[in-house]
């Protein structure tokens, strides 16, 4: 064996012996590091969990979503139902699936505050034509809804909902005052997808009081082999220059709906109103338009029961109005799976900053803790270092020994901390499967391990330098 390797092995064994011969102190230092690293893994697993859920979810939804610009999710989006026919005519489109989303406020007499549950109104005829549907693929019991279920109260529910309300196939789930018969149970293994009760679109329209002229969004499945980006560009070209007043803004609708729904559940109305206001603030163009309308004293919003998009004929039946001079903005937003992922990444950036701050505090505490531990350890062992130096150990060798010891502590703290943090994420995920998804990726665990080791070495460096600089007799005298 090369001498250098032998030297390192001896030094490693000596450092290990030193740590093992002081079990209580080593254990305390290890505990300090473990807590810090486990905390770090836990905090970062929140952000990674969101990213993992987003990528898992949108990896399962390969098509394009056409929805109201700026709406964070389809729940807050409303666009004219009539635009579906125009989209269908675009080259490269295989299926246009109209969707209506709403919150399920009360299920089996229980208000659904958290976790939220959603009503997903599906155009079942179009859904049948989809080559791939995440809900159909995720059927675990029973069957998917088909065109034959149109006009019925048959429901496909997520396993999480079925388990929460202890329901199985053939049983009835009472949702917002309607009895829905469960014909299928799905599981998409995504926190974002396993929250829906899928019903016929007309049923959801009536439950959510969404008129036939509106949908939340269109899910567009491209033709086989069609380029998704090209298709998105074609769809944008279709709507470019179209006046935004030909459809009903979601905020106005949300306010209106909140007022209507508050009859059944005041809290849900309040939440939806707040949600609409917080997540979908009016654009400047909307505000300017609202001002103009209000100055006319004839704002549609001022007329009870009449929404701006429902004046006269349904907007879907109007010929599309093109007025490039009015706005260069698109009245729709076309989102690909990548766009969704980007959107959620932006959404979670603030959370990342918060987690970083929390972790920094944890890491600072760990760093101060390990410096303190190593300083105490080294101060107590001045005689030992004096003896080593009296026997010819160089300052560098003493430094290396202490660095080895603190690196070993850091590594052990990293291993234990990563394992504890990882197990904690599994336990939390298992305990609240429908509420939270934490994910500690292998790269996060490896990073934690390396970080802890570096932290250990840095923590031991200052006391090591102090010890190494002393003359042997100074060290022995101080000891």
């Amino acid at each position: 064996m090369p001498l250098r390797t032998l030297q390192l092995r001896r030094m490693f064994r000596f450092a290990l012996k030193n740590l093992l011969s002081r079990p209580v102190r080593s254990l305390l230092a290890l505990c300090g590091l473990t807590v810090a690293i486990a905390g770090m893994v836990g905090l970062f697993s929140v952000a990674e969990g969101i990213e993992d859920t987003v990528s898992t979810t949108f990896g399962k939804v390969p098509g394009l979503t056409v929805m109201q610009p700026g709406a964070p999710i389809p729940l807050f989006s409303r666009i004219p139902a009539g635009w579906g026919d125009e989209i269908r005519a675009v080259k490269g489109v295989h299926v246009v699936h109209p969707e209506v989303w709403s919150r399920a406020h009360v299920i089996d007499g229980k208000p659904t505050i958290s976790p939220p549950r959603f009503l997903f109104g599906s155009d079942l005829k179009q859904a049948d034509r989809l080559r791939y549907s995440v809900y159909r693929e995720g059927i675990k019991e029973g069957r998917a809804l088909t065109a034959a279920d149109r006009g019925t109260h048959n429901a496909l529910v997520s396993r999480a909902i079925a388990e929460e309300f202890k329901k199985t196939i053939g049983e009835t789930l009472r949702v917002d005052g309607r009895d829905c018969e469960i014909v299928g149970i799905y599981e998409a293994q995504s926190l974002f997808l396993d929250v829906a009760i899928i019903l016929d679109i007309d049923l959801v329209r009536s439950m959510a009081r969404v008129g036939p002229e509106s949908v939340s969004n269109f899910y567009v499945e491209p033709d086989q082999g069609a380029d998704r980006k090209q298709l998105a560009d074609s769809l944008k070209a279709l709507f470019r220059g179209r006046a935004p007043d030909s459809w009903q803004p979601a905020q106005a609708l949300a306010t209106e709906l909140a007022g209507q729904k508050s009859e059944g559940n005041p809290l849900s109305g309040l939440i939806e109103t707040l949600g609409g206001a917080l997540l979908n603030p009016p654009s400047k163009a909307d505000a300017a338009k609202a001002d103009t309308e209000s100055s006319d004293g004839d704002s549609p919003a001022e007329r009870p029961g009449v929404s701006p998009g429902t004046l006269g004929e349904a907007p879907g039946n109007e010929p599309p109005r093109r007025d490039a001079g009015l706005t260069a903005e698109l009245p729709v937003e076309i989102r690909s799976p990548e766009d969704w992922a980007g959107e959620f990444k932006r959404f979670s950036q603030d959370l990342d900053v918060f987690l970083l701050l929390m972790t920094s505090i944890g890491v600072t505490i760990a760093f101060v803790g390990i410096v303190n531990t190593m300083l105490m350890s080294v101060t107590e062992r001045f005689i030992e270092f004096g003896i080593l130096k009296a026997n010819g150990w160089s300052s560098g060798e003493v430094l290396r020994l202490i660095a080895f010891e603190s690196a070993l502590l850091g590594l052990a703290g990293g291993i234990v901390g990563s394992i504890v943090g990882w197990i904690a994420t599994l336990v939390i995920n298992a305990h609240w499967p429908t509420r939270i998804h934490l994910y500690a990726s292998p790269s996060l665990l490896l990073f934690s391990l390396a970080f802890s080791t570096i932290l250990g070495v840095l923590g031991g460096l200052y006391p090591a330098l102090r010890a190494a600089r002393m003359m042997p007799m100074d060290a022995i005298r101080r000891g």
Partner: protein
Amino acid sequence: MIEVTGVVKTYLRGSTEVRALRGLTCHIPPAALTFIVGPSGSGKSSLLYLLGALDRPSSGEIVVQGRSLSQFDRRERDLYRRDQVGFVFQNFNLLSNLNAVDNVLVPYLPQGVSRERRSEAEDLLRHVGLGDRLDHRPSQLSGGEQQRVAIARALLKRPLLILADEPTGELDSESGAEVYRYLRGLRDEQGSTVVVVTHDQSHIQPGDNVLTLRDGRLAGA
């Protein structure tokens, strides 16, 4: 062998300046057993540590085999301590977490210990009567046995100079006599220069070199 010229050593004990050596000049012959004696606080141990480059003089010069210790750089100082000087301390100064063999091998741990050197360390421990104590830790050894481990550690490097600070201070008379037998044997067999600081002058024999210190100066030789 060793020339000490005008050495002054002061150090701080708390906020008080202690003048341990006050311009000491003396000569230590090679391959001899030199005793440094004197009352407490006369500077005996301070001189010993300066001879072993465990400390630096405040002024003055110490020349060992023609080379001034003050001219040594850090690395030369480390090598001098590791290869040429063997220390035997009053309180043994063994490492509590190592067994007897590893304590003997301490000077060589950073470089890596060859099988031959380990075998040599075991032979030395057998030679000082610790053949059945090889894997014992200091806490499992008596004071006399610990001092013999310290002597074996000093012997392993076949040093030019052996410095012993009150080597029998914590031992009974029988163990103390045994320690001196080893030190004299080392001088006779290896031609090492042995310098011993002691209060107990009963071990001094005719022909030994004796330096008497008082108040940091040489009072008699």
